[in-house]
């Protein structure tokens, strides 16, 4: 059996580890556009911040490919999948044969065409190791940075650059920060926290036009900058599957075994759609844990196992300047809010199930809430007083508790 994987990030690593749990011998070929040993994408902000050194960027040890008997083709780009021939064509004309193929092509930054953008010399996106390296090489203590997008990527970039540059201004069209993962109250808390750290945040506004070192916003406000970072959002890399005739909506569509509509072609990670079981909707869940777990399931199935990936939900753990956020699920139904001195918590209950939560500041044991969402636990079996108080195992009935305390996740 010959496995081919396009991509070299979390989903690809998940697939390699998944395949090797089932098949120790089959050859694995990894085709990677980037020239690096598999690295952790979210660490790029820690890298520019100086909290992580280059040797700690790697997602798996340097012996990983060898230990897993993988042939790695770094710096090679897959340009076409030919399902009839079971072949992947590479840029430059070479091709690679597969028996089972995984598409783990991730996502790319989304850039809104804006007047004058082409004329901006120092513009960056913030997705890859190379992005981080070139951004780092371009800043000085006198640099004024403009970041477009107050989402996870834009604000992590802002945190990484803070104290290394003269000023950071973040602009977002939304009326609040981190709008994809927080509610209004949560956004307000984080905005204040970020501003206290010295980051300027402009909301409900967007860039109308760029001149060389000046952005004019729709409100008329002018923001001078030396470096522009575009962090509006990401779009899944679906082209390979789409052009090969596979089903694609916003992301690549797979079944619960992670197989695309093309036989023997699987997909996992940010390029795919998942079924968010907290609200029963197809979504692109561009999150590292999701990518790894999809990849692992894909790998196992490619190697002949029959396992489903059926517990996907949105979930995020992220911190800014020492203030931690953990969120999961969807924010609908009845909600319960708790505001502490340095913390905020909101739980969402729908159809007698916990479907989502937001925790800021106090995040201990949040995973117990996550498990309630993923296991779709019927709350009539749960001590509601305890559930609302804080995450604990005492809220479960005795038999469930005993099971949890006796054996682990097997």
């Amino acid at each position, binding site marked *: 059996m010959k496995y081919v994987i396009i991509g070299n990030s979390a989903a690809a690593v*998940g697939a390699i580890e998944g395949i090797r749990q089932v098949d120790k011998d089959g050859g694995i070929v990894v085709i990677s556009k980037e020239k690096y040993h598999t690295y*952790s994408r*979210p*660490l790029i902000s*820690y890298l520019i911040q100086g*909290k*992580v050194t280059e040797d*700690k960027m*790697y*997602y*798996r*040890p340097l012996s990983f490919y060898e230990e897993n008997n993988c042939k790695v083709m770094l710096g090679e780009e897959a340009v076409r999948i030919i399902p009839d021939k079971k072949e992947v064509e590479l840029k430059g004309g070479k091709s690679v044969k597969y028996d089972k193929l995984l598409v783990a092509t991730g996502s790319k930054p989304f850039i809104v065409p804006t007047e004058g953008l082409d004329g901006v010399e120092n513009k960056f996106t913030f997705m890859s190791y190379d992005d981080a390296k070139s951004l780092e090489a371009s800043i000085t203590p006198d640099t004024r940075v403009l970041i477009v997008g107050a989402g996870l990527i834009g604000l992590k970039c802002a945190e990484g650059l803070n104290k290394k540059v003269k000023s950071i201004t973040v602009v977002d069209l939304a009326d609040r920060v981190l709008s994809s993962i927080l509610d209004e109250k949560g956004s307000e808390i984080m905005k204040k926290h970020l501003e206290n750290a010295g980051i300027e945040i402009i909301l409900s506004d967007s860039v109308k036009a760029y001149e060389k070192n000046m952005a004019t916003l729709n409100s008329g406000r002018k923001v001078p900058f030396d470096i522009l970072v575009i962090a509006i959002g990401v779009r899944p890399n679906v082209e390979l599957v789409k052009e090969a005739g596979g089903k694609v909506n916003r992301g690549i569509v797979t079944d619960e075994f992670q197989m695309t509509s093309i036989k023997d072609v699987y997909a996992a990670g940010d390029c795919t759609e998942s079924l968010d079981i907290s609200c029963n909707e197809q979504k692109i869940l561009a999150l*590292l*844990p999701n990518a*790894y*777990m999809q990849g*692992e399931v894909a790998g196992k199935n490619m190697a002949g196992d029959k396992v489903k990936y059926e517990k996907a939900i949105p*979930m*995020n*753990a*992220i*911190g800014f300047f*020492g203030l*931690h956020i*953990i969120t*999961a699920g969807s924010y609908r139904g009845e909600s319960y809010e708790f505001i502490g001195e340095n913390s905020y918590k909101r739980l969402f209950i729908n159809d007698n199930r916990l479907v989502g939560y937001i925790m800021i500041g106090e*995040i*201990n*044991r*949040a*995973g*117990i809430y*996550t*498990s309630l969402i993923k296991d779709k636990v019927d709350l009539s079996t749960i001590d509601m007083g305890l559930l609302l108080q804080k*995450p*604990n*195992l*005492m809220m479960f009935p005795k038999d469930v*508790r*005993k099971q*949890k*305390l*006796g*054996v*682990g*996740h*097997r």
Partner: protein
Amino acid sequence: MNEEWCLGCHLCEYFCAFVNSGEKYMPKAFALNRQNVPNITVEEGDRINFAVNCRQCDEPLCKKGCITGAISVKDGVVTIDTEKCVGCFTCILSCPYGAVVPNKEGKAAKKCELCISNGGIPACVTNCPNRAIVLEEVY
């Protein structure tokens, strides 16, 4: 963990924090401003108490979700490389037992590693006065 036998005395928490603190003398591990965090948590109820620590899962969700690759399984023990951990706490988000905690500086995650680096016999087990905490391999 046998909840019927747990007294809720918290000795497991103290011994855990002590043996993992690197201190040789117990009071020093708890001196002012040195609050060492245990890897085991006692939950107290009206009549029931129990301690929760890592279940050393066969399919550890903390490891699968870890964004840096800091979590690995060595000889059945789920281990966090604190040098690689950046303290994003995706493991805390992922663990269904609430068994991963921030370290005392809040900069990295930590968890029970069965005292493998402290002689191999978990301090919570040896110091549980009512033998509520036992070390058993579960298949």
